[in-house]
């Protein structure tokens, strides 16, 4: 068995990449991809712990998490479409109505 910490490192790496994508990409679709990456990194953590502890709780939570991710992603896409309809852009940097 490879050490648990390897799985955790990979998950952390994925999480950071996803975080980077959320904060630094201008394209809204890339933001959503980043969110997905973060969620999956968390899932990977759950599965890894579950395997090394012999506990099925982690697996269960991971499945629920996948379902939630899917639902939330579709909501995000829907919001994006409406934003596009109203502002004709999905560039996050140019959506500044909250300024001030």
């Amino acid at each position, binding site marked *: 068995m490879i050490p648990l910490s390897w799985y955790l490192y990979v998950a952390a790496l994925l999480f950071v990449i996803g975080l980077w994508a*959320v*904060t*630094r990409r*201008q394209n809204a679709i890339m*933001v959503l991809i980043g969110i997905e990456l973060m969620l999956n990194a968390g899932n990977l953590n759950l599965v890894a712990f579950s395997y090394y502890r012999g506990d099925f709780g982690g697996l269960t939570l991971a499945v629920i998490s996948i379902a939630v991710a899917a639902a939330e992603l579709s909501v995000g896409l829907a919001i994006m479409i409406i934003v596009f309809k109203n502002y004709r852009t999905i560039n*996050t940097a140019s*959506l*500044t109505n*909250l300024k*001030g």
Partner: protein
Amino acid sequence: MAGPFEALLPYAWVTVFLPALGFLLVFALGRDRKRGNWWLDGGALFGISTVAASAVLSFLIFLEVWLYNDPYYSPEPWVWMRFFDATTGSPGLYIGTGLHIDGLAALLMFIVSFLSTCIVVYSTAYMHEEGALRRYYFEIMLFITGMMGMVVVDNYLFAFIFWEMMGLCSYLLIGYWYRKPSAASAAKKAFLVTRAGDILFLFGILLLFNNFHTLNYRELFEHIINGFEAGTLSKAELDAVAWAGLLIFGGAVGKSAQFPLHVWLPDAMEGPTTVSALIHAATMVKAGVYITARSLPIIALFPSSLALIALIGALTAFLAATIALVVYDIKRVLAYSTISQLAYMFVGLGTLGVGPALFHLMNHAFFKALLFLGSGSVIHGAHTQDMRQMGGLKDKMKWTYRTMLAGSLSLAGIPLVSGWWSKDEIITSAARFHPGGTLTGPFGYLAMPYETLGWAVFGLCLITAGLTGFYTFRMIFLTFHGKPRYDEEHIHVHESPGPMVNVLKVLAVFALLSGAVTVGISYLVPNAFEHHAVDELLEPKVTEVPSLLTWQEYLANPVLYASTLIALAGVWLAWMTYARGFVEPKRLVGVAPDPATPERRVGGTAAGRALFYMFTAKWGMDWLFLKIALFGDAGLARASDLIDRRFIDGTTYGLGRSAFGGSDVLRRVADGVVRNYTAWIIGGLAFGLLLLKYVIPAVQGGGLTP
């Protein structure tokens, strides 16, 4: 031994409450112009009746205490607030007062109430043309309450309370015509200057209380004197007593207008003449003498303090007399004369001639009140206060002239008239005061032998006696003799109405005879005055310096002749100058081309002009105070302003500005780009986690744990 009025003694407080009742009645029921009747306007009758009743009671108490040697000290004080001592459970400290009616108190009760009655009666006529009479009468009533209260209480706290009450009434009454700028300014000056003295007084009281935890005269003095003689007082306590004595005298310096706090009294003449008579001649200014006399048992433990008091007295007497030589306002002559005579009383107290000092207090109260009221009559008749515009009034105002002459004889110290007896005794006391050694104590740096000081005090008193004779009769001659210097056609001079002249007559009798009567009684009952007037704790010291002299000693006393001669010389000089015109003042001091600035003169001798200028400028005191005020007060004001605007306002505005600036910087976070918001949030979260994991355990336990 008990007299017939013994039962009245515990009710001495009634003499204080009666004027207070008069105050309330006048305040509530007085009307400015009830019927145009002098007795009813302004509620005068309430005032007169209550004060007269108080005077009768005071007189009976005075007789009881003096004729039967029966002082009264309240066994149980009236307590207003009590502070229990929780640890020991004892009654502890209290705020309250009892009565302390000894000879000194009884004497003052009598003088104050009697003169107040006279003056209130006089006021009915003098003030009848004024508006706001009700205010005048109730302010007078409040004042009388204050003075009567001060002399009957048995501790310093209540004495101070009544002292302040009098200061307030002085302010109110001097500023009676408050719309007149000079009057308002004079009232303010009086209050502020006496306030300076009051602060010294308060410090003295606090020192005493801090060290001895009581302010009751008997307890305090007995404790201190017994401790002093047994040597059980600590150094700190001895210092406290020495300084406290001088500080209490400092309060007296303010209230009784001694150098350097004398400057308010001449300006206080802006008030009505009756106010000047009551407050600034007969009563309030005596309060300083009273409290010094009251405190003398503890002041006398330190001869240097006594020497200082005598020195200040002598200097003030001389200073004020020189200024009185050159002023033209009749009231101001009397004001400076008052300062000078009060100084004599302090010389008496300082040289342990307590009997003479209080004897002079009594005489002076009578004749000065008489002189002031007489001047009021003159002002009423001649419609001016400036003596240069009077002259030849003696035929037109006969009784005013005669009574003022009586008062002046007394003031100048003409033989056999009352002022002569007391003034000479004070000067004798000054001549005898040189117990040897040098000055030590808080003012040890003066390092002057007593001998020199004694001669200085004596010399100044003697010279002042001459000056007194001169300025007094200068006043008389300028006012009443010679040719009229006013416009006879347009100004009709007439004698004053009944209430005024009758009061003058009554007071003249007292002024002339008070001295002789007292000395006569002393002849029959040796040392009667001194025995009653002087506090029993002080007597052992006082009898070392014999004060009230017997007939034999009187006639053998060279000082007597010296001072009488000098006084008579002063009177004669005034006669030659102003009545006979033999010596013309302008040959010595020149004339003033512009009467409005009498200090600028031409002609005469240089020395004469110089002296005249110095006296008219009041020895530079006004200039000095102005400089102090401008430098000290204005400087302080400017510094305070600077601190307030730069530092305090700067800090508060600075905080505000930094808030604005900081928010300007922070505002840039909210740029509207949600992506950045997310970044901030995640960043903050990461930071918080790091903090939690690494920093906080390190702070708590020390050492990093990965």
